[in-house]
Structure formats: structure tokens, C-alpha cells
């Protein structure tokens, strides 16, 4: 491995800007760190270069632990967005800087400089000052300078940010060629997904300081694992679909779900549909099994090769649900059509069309949506406005629905409506919350969030599972929650020894939660035996949000 990072964490002012990042980059690989601004990608790059220290974790270059090593001894080349050329020096002096530092003889320095200038296609510009070069030429000089001392690793920090589109394209090609010719391991940081696709062997996507997913561009695009990656890499329509025995139900359509185990109970899932996977036709009959719903063309933009549409879905029963934080937002779909499709069926704004889906990808995320639940609709609606819940839903780009359940928590009574509980069910952390949570879990809810009215975004998430059978699901849910909380750190509580059936475990967890403010607990359970009684000290009128994950032992 050329670069290996283990659990690298960096805080600024108590906030983790790089949070528990582990990564291995192979020899000669072109790796792109992609993320929005403020995602921590540049900080991570500077940590690799040695310009920023890390608070925790280990960095190794070619098997050598460099975590404590100064930047000048790491043998890396770094290229900056603003070139960072030495303006009072000529191109030649800039390129030879690293060689002069190393006391290389003048003749060998000149040879190396000529070689580098040829590599970046700037022969003959040796005696110019940086101010006399164009932006693209300056960045080429910066690349040559960074390569002069034959570093083992080349790091590029948004190197094309200040260049216009045409120069950018050219420079991209040059850098890729140079990288292939030298076989040098390269890490490029960018916020531009097109750039990432164009250059990367593999892409790592960062958000809120976390490295969410790593993969080759095509896999990340077609099979993202998280909502963030699905929506950040290209456009995506997110549906709340039902996963049944016969496939994925989106609106009226039933689609095959490759590689997904069938869910007998009709589990709710988040389905990603790319704009190019949506078809429009004059009538549902033309779309066959792929027909989802009817809609109206709201906006139509032609941009050369593709036509981009915004289609507003008609509401009504059986209409597909879009995973958006705002349930009142009109259900728009993004659609792109090729020239070929445009010719076969011409569209104009205001036209009514049948909308179909060719292919869906189901996100393996365990939390599809939230539903607040109370004995009266008013209480449920009030709970749906709880700030932590709305923040989580906004970040997860999912909806909060409300559900009134008059029999909630009442012993042997069954749920009123025949609809199953979908997504994570949210109840208020008032007296009797433990009993209500047990009732919901007994009646089919897989995740129950017990939420105090005053709870704010947690800084720390405690994770604990009562039964080994619930371990996998608990960790998956915790990972999903953590991905959407910027400042939170996870702590695994581990094994708590206590007699079965007693409330000892709940009391111990309550003690740990009480240690510092702004904590949250995620607890996994398989066996619901006397759950309410055991957890009433923690949940009844509790001050901390507690997310209970229930997976029965199979």
C-alpha cells in the first residue's frame, strides 16, 4: 500500500473535521477524494502531506509510519489550488527549489528541470516569472515543481479550481498522462464530481468529516450505499418504496431488485432512480410493468445532448412517495432524455404523461423514514416538529409522517389501522414511554426512537446491544445515524454484566448517559421479554434520545 490511513481523526475547536477515516491507496493508483466544501477532504490531504497534525490515528506512506514526521521529510509533492508559486523566482528556480534544498549539483539540476518541463509541456519557458504565465501554465509549473524531488506520493488540492473549462480539460489530461508515465500514487481533492469521474481509478466520498464510501466510479454511481452518495454523485430521485416478496413496489410499478433478499413483511426501503432510468410515454400501456404514476411536465431544458425535465407527479392514492424532508413539497421527478428519446416522443411544458421506471437501486440504509406516533393526532404532529427529528430528517432527505394510534401501549390491544409500522417510529419520552415502546416493537415496529421534547443534536452516541442477534442491525442503524450528525462521535458501550430480566443494564446505561450532556443511545434488542419493565428507568421521562433497534433472533 502506498498510503494507508487508520482511524485518522482531526478536531478544530472541539469539532471533528476529519472523523475516524481509514483508507488504503495502492501503488500507482489515482485516488480522488470527493466531497462538498467543509467535508474535511482538504484537511485530510494536508494531514497526509504532514502540514496538519492529527489528533488520533495513524498515517503510513509505503509502509513507513509518518504520523509524527515533518512534512519536509515525508517525500510528498503537493499542488495547491492557487498554484503557490514563488513569485520572485523564475520558472527554473521554482522547479529547482526542492533540488537546491537538497544541494544537488547545478548540472544535474538543469537536466532534471528540462526533463520536468518537457513532461508538463512547457519547454523553453525556464526564464519566465510566474506573473508572465497564464493560469494553466502556472499550474503546470506547480506540478513540475512538486515532482522535482521524485516524491513517492503526489497530492493535488483542487488544482483546477481557478481555471476555465477548456484549460481545465487540457490540464486534466496532462496530469493523468504524467501520472501514468511516472506511475506515481496520486490523491486529488475536488468537489467536482465530473472531475472525479474523469480522473479517478477509485473515488472516496467525504461528508461531514466522514469517509462515507470508496469505490470505482461506475459502482459508486450505479450502486451507492448511502443517501448522500446517491444524491451527491449525479442527480437522483429518492423514493420510499415497499420491498415485498415479488420485488420493489414504486407507485404502480413492481421492479426486480437484483441482489436483495425478499422481505416477506413489505419492508419500507429507499429506492434510488437515476434521471436517465425514468421513461415518459403518452399512456401507461406503453410502459407496461414499469409504469409508476401519471405526471405533468413542469419544466423542460434542452442542453445539447440531453433534455432535462422536471415532472410533477399527480397525487392520489397509490402515488409513489418521494423521500423528501418536507411532506408538503410538490413531488417533482428529475428526468433526462437522450436525443433519440426526444425524437420518438416530443414533449412540451404542461403536457400530461405516464411516468415509468426502468431500473431501481435499493439503498441498504436501515432507516428509510420517520413516523411520529401518539394517541392523538395533535401530539403526533407536535412531536414531528421536534428540532432534532426535523434536523435528522432534513439531513437524511427523508420524510416525517404522523400516525395516530389511540390504543398505543394498551396491553393486548392491536394497532388500529391495518397498515404495518414502516420506518422508524418516534414517540415522546414521557411517562409510560417504555411500555409504549415495547407495545410498538411487539406489533411490528423495527426501530423506535424515544425522543425527549428538549433533545438537541448529540455530540456522542452510545451504542449497546442486549442480545448478540441484534448486533449487526444495531451497528448498521448507528452508522446511518452517525453519518448524518456532523459533530457526533460514537462510543461502543460493550458488554454490561447484569442478571437477565433485571433493570440493571438500563440503570447502568442511564448512568453513562448522565455523565455528559448531549448524548444519545442506540440500543439493540432481540428478546422483548419484559422490555418495558426493564427500561422504564431509562425511557420514562428520560432526558436523552434513545433509538431502540429490534431484530428477532432467527
Amino acid at each position: 500500500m502506498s498510503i494507508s490511513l487508520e482511524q485518522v481523526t482531526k478536531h478544530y475547536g472541539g469539532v471533528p473535521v476529519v472523523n475516524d477515516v481509514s483508507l488504503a491507496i495502492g501503488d500507482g493508483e489515482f485516488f480522488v477524494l470527493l466531497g462538498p466544501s467543509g467535508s474535511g477532504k482538504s484537511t485530510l490531504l494536508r494531514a497526509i502531506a504532514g502540514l496538519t497534525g492529527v489528533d488520533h490515528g495513524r498515517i503510513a506512506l509505503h509502509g513507513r509510519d509518518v504520523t509524527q514526521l515533518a512534512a519536509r521529510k515525508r517525500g510528498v509533492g503537493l499542488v495547491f489550488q492557487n498554484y503557490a508559486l514563488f513569485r520572485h523566482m523564475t520558472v527554473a528556480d521554482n522547479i529547482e527549489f526542492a533540488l537546491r534544498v537538497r544541494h544537488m549539483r547545478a548540472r544535474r539540476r538543469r537536466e532534471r528541470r528540462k526533463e520536468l518541463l518537457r513532461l508538463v509541456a512547457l519547454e523553453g519557458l525556464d526564464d519566465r516569472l510566474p506573473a508572465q504565465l497564464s493560469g494553466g501554465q502556472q499550474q503546470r509549473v506547480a506540478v513540475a515543481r512538486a515532482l522535482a524531488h521524485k516524491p513517492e506520493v503526489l497530492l493535488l488540492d483542487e488544482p483546477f479550481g481557478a481555471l476555465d473549462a477548456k484549460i481545465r480539460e487540457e490540464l486534466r489530461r496532462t496530469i493523468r498522462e504524467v501520472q501514468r508515465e511516472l506511475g506515481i500514487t496520486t490523491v486529488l481533492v475536488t468537489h467536482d464530481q465530473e472531475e472525479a469521474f474523469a480522473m479517478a481509478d477509485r473515488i472516496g466520498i467525504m461528508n461531514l468529516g466522514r469517509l462515507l464510501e470508496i469505490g470505482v466510479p461506475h459502482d459508486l454511481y450505479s450502486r451507492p450505499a448511502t443517501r448522500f452518495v446517491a444524491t451527491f454523485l449525479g442527480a437522483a430521485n429518492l423514493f420510499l418504496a415497499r420491498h415485498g416478496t415479488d420485488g420493489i413496489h414504486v407507485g404502480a410499478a413492481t421492479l426486480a431488485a437484483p441482489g436483495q433478499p425478499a422481505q416477506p413483511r413489505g419492508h419500507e426501503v429507499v429506492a434510488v432512480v437515476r434521471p436517465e432510468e425514468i421513461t415518459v410515454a403518452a399512456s401507461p400501456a406503453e410502459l407496461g410493468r414499469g409504469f409508476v404514476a401519471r405526471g405533468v411536465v413542469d419544466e423542460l431544458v434542452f442542453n445539447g445532448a440531453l433534455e432535462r425535465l422536471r415532472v410533477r407527479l399527480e397525487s392520489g392514492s397509490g402515488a409513489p412517495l418521494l423521500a423528501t424532508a418536507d411532506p408538503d413539497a410538490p413531488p417533482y421527478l428529475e428526468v433526462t432524455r437522450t436525443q433519440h428519446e426526444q425524437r420518438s416522443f416530443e414533449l412540451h411544458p404542461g403536457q400530461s404523461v405516464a411516468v415509468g421506471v426502468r431500473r431501481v437501486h435499493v439503498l441498504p440504509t436501515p432507516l428509510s423514514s420517520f413516523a411520529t406516533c401518539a394517541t392523538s393526532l395533535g401530539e403526533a404532529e407536535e412531536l414531528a416538529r421536534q428540532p432534532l427529528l426535523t434536523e435528522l430528517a432534513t439531513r437524511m432527505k427523508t420524510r416525517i409522517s404522523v400516525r395516530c394510534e389511540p390504543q398505543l401501549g394498551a396491553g393486548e390491544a392491536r394497532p388500529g389501522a391495518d397498515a404495518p409500522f414502516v420506518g422508524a417510529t418516534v414517540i415522546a419520552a414521557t411517562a409510560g414511554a417504555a411500555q409504549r415502546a415495547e407495545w410498538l416493537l411487539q406489533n411490528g415496529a423495527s426501530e423506535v426512537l424515544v425522543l425527549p421534547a428538549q433533545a438537541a443534536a448529540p455530540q456522542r452516541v452510545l451504542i449497546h446491544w442486549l442480545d448478540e442477534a441484534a448486533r449487526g442491525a444495531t451497528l448498521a442503524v448507528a452508522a446511518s445515524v452517525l453519518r448524518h450528525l456532523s459533530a457526533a462521535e460514537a462510543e461502543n458501550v460493550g458488554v454490561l454484566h447484569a442478571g437477565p430480566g433485571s433493570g440493571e443494564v438500563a440503570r447502568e446505561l442511564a448512568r453513562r448517559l448522565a455523565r455528559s450532556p448531549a448524548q444519545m443511545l442506540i440500543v439493540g434488542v432481540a428478546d422483548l421479554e419484559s422490555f418495558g419493565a426493564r427500561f422504564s428507568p431509562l425511557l420514562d421521562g428520560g432526558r436523552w434520545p434513545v433509538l431502540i433497534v429490534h431484530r428477532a433472533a432467527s
Partner: protein
Amino acid sequence: MSFRKPSVLPGFGLTFGFTTFFLSAIVLLPLAALVLAAASMHWSEFVAVVSSPRALGSYRLSFGASALAATINMVFGFIIAWTLVRYEFPGRKLLDALIDMPFALPTAVSGIALTTVFARHGWIGRYLEPLGIEVAYTWLGVTLALTLISMPFAVRTLQPALLEVQRDLEDAAETLGAGRFYAFRRIILPTVLPALLTGFTLSFARAVGEYGSVIFIAGNLPMKTEITPLLIVIHLEQFDYRGAAALGVVMLAMSFLGLLTINLLQAWNRRRQVQAAH
């Protein structure tokens, strides 16, 4: 050059007129009067006044102490400007405002304050005396006073220049293998050299012209701690206006020469960089 270019401010004719008028009325005319006053002396008389041992001693002190003060200010002004530009710390704004205090204070007040602190029984002076260091009433005191009053010029000219030295430049130098000192000498210093020279010039010019603060701490012993401006005042008090004017002309000439040299040096430095480019 066109005299009629549309612009927000009135045209070139009007602004150039004002420029020459004000420069004439405020700078050139009084200076010309000074030269005229001196010119009414006989040549031998002039030479006798400006080359008397007492005058020569005062030049040495005035220009020597000013050059020393400007040099000190380059070093410490750089450090102060660096601290203010590069670091965030509580009280930074306050410190930044404090830099300008010597501008605002009547110089006589600065002189009195310095004397209080550095006189033989002053707050600091009493600890320096056993070490054999006397500040008040020596050339050291003169240098100290000149350093104090000219310090803001050095800091204020260096600050914007240092702001432009991006941290990326140091980072680049470091990843290329340069140590701190090497990066400072080869990257930072050359980048801020023009500002450093300007700061020196302004500090020096301010120090040469200083009078108020020095006379309190200098003790004004002829040949030893007597600066030229003071000698001029002494001539004036004896109603020897022409002698005062003669000394004034010498100061004028020397200051002008000094400033001109540094300006030429700067221009040469700029030209050299442009030439290297072709």
C-alpha cells in the same frame, strides 16, 4: 497621455493644478525660503557654521541614531507585524490599535514618559545602572526615543505585505523539503523586501526630523547628546536665524539624498526582477 479621460474625479487639468499648488504652497515654498535664508550668508560663514565640531557631532548623532532606530524597527517591526497578521489571540485588536499610539501622542509626552522609565532612578533605569548601562542622557536614550516614535511606520508598511504572503507558500516550501529558516530566507524575505525597504525609509525619515521626545531624554550635552534639530533651535534662541537656516539646508540635503538612494534602490530591485523575466 490624454488630458481628457472620463473619470469619477475631476479631470487631469484640475487635479494636477491642485497638486502643484498645494505642493508649492506647503512644501516647496517654505523649503525655498529656507535655502534663500541660508544663501544670504557668505560662503565661508556658511561653511564655518555647518562644519563646526559641534554641528558635525550633531549630524553623527542625528543620522546615526536614526539609522540605528530604523534598523531596530525593521527587525522588531517585522516580528510585531508577523504576530499581528499570522496569529489569532485574545487582545489582538487592542495590540493592533496600540501600534498607532506613538502617532497620536505629542512627542514631548513620549519623551517625558521615556525619561521617567529610563532615568537613573526610573522604573527600569535603576536596574540598568548597576549593570553600567545608562540610557537617559546618552546616545542610547536618543536611539530609544527615535525607535519609539518611528516604530508605527515600520509595522504599518509591513502588515499589508505580510498579509499577501500566503501560508500556502510556506507550506509549498515545506513539502519541497525546505526547513523553516531556509523558507524564511528564500521565500518570505524576498517577497516582503520592498515593503521592508519602504518601512526603513519612512522610519528613518521620521526619526531624522524628530525633536520633541529626544530633548527630554538626551540631556543635550554638546558634541555628545545633541541632535541637529536641537542645535538649530539653539541657534534660533540666539537670534541667529541664518545659522539655523544653514544647518536646516544641510539636513534637508542629507535627508533628500538618503531618501533618493533608497528609492533608487527599490526601482533598481524592481527593474532587476522584470529584467530577469525577459
